[in-house]
């Protein structure tokens, strides 16, 4: 039985990797060659034929060395979800936040509506709502261009509204407990106002803009993966 580890180490030569990693690769390749050789012998082939079969799997050691070096040095690109969901989603959140922050500036002469609804005021920043379709369109287009599927595009569009609703909802158990203890009542109206003003309306506005880009072929095809 040939010493496949010695053969693989000699044929492969230095890969420019740290010694431990290089040895692991040598060990793995040697194991593969040994399996090929043993299988060939089990099938009744002669020693020479079995050797030929094993070496046939690595006819071009230069190519193998080159490919291994390329694989070792290849930068890990951003994964699919980062490209199709988190980056476009972060963009829509940032844009939405910037516009809202500008409109909330007390010195900004931009009108907003305080709609008294029972004991709670529903604040509607009309200009913010009007900007959301554009922001939704940007998020959906970006996600689609990056190869996002329907769900990823829809989530990238919806993240600003989801964030607006989910963050306050994290406080919900505490608010609920406080209100139940203090007022012996459930805060239905404030919750409904919160959901409507910061969830439903913004989500609708974002989806209106994103709708044209939610369907259709993504910007990347199978061959590009």
């Amino acid at each position: 039985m040939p010493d496949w580890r010695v053969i693989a180490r000699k044929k492969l030569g230095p890969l420019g990797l740290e010694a431990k990693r290089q040895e692991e690769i040598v060990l793995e390749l040697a194991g593969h060659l040994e399996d090929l050789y043993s299988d060939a012998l089990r099938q009744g082939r002669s020693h020479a034929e079995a050797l030929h079969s094993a070496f046939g799997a690595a006819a071009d050691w230069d190519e193998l060395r080159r490919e291994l070096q390329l694989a070792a040095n290849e930068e890990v690109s951003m994964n699919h979800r980062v490209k199709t969901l988190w980056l476009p989603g972060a963009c829509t959140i940032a844009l939405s936040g910037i516009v809202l922050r500008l409109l909330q500036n007390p010195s900004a002469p931009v009108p907003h509506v305080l709609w008294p609804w029972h004991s709670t005021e529903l604040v509607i920043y009309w200009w913010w709502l009007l900007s959301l379709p554009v922001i939704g369109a940007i998020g959906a287009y970006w996600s689609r261009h990056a190869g996002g599927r329907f769900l990823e595009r829809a989530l990238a569009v919806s993240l600003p509204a989801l964030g607006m609703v989910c963050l306050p909802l994290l406080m919900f158990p505490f608010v609920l407990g406080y209100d139940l203890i203090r007022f012996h009542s459930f805060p239905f109206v404030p919750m409904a106002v919160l959901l409507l003003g910061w969830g439903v309306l913004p989500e609708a506005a974002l989806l209106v803009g994103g709708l044209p880009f939610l369907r259709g072929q993504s910007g990347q095809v199978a061959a590009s993966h």
Partner: protein
Amino acid sequence: MKDHTINIGAQVKRGSAELAILSVLSDGPLHGYEISKRIERQSQGLLRFNLASLYPLLYRMEKRGWVSGNWEGPAGGRQRRYYRLGPAGKRRLVPLREEWGQLFQALHTLAGVTHA
């Protein structure tokens, strides 16, 4: 023009090889030799890997978190590196299957090409 063609060919090759590896690993962990034999057997000899096409790709897929490799074997016996499908690999397998299905569908429509 020539470079573009070569690039697409290489990408298609790599994409199909990734799909083949992820598919066989979806049945359970395998070491490199088993992966190549399983693919060869299941494709009835149509798809064959050599060392240069299998291991660099496995290492790339490991870097991306699609598969994870661990040395296993009996104490004092031969150690082999077994590859398992990771969560990212499982997620990747679904769209890859869809994309290749669509590609074959398109080729069938275009040129009457059918897959096995």
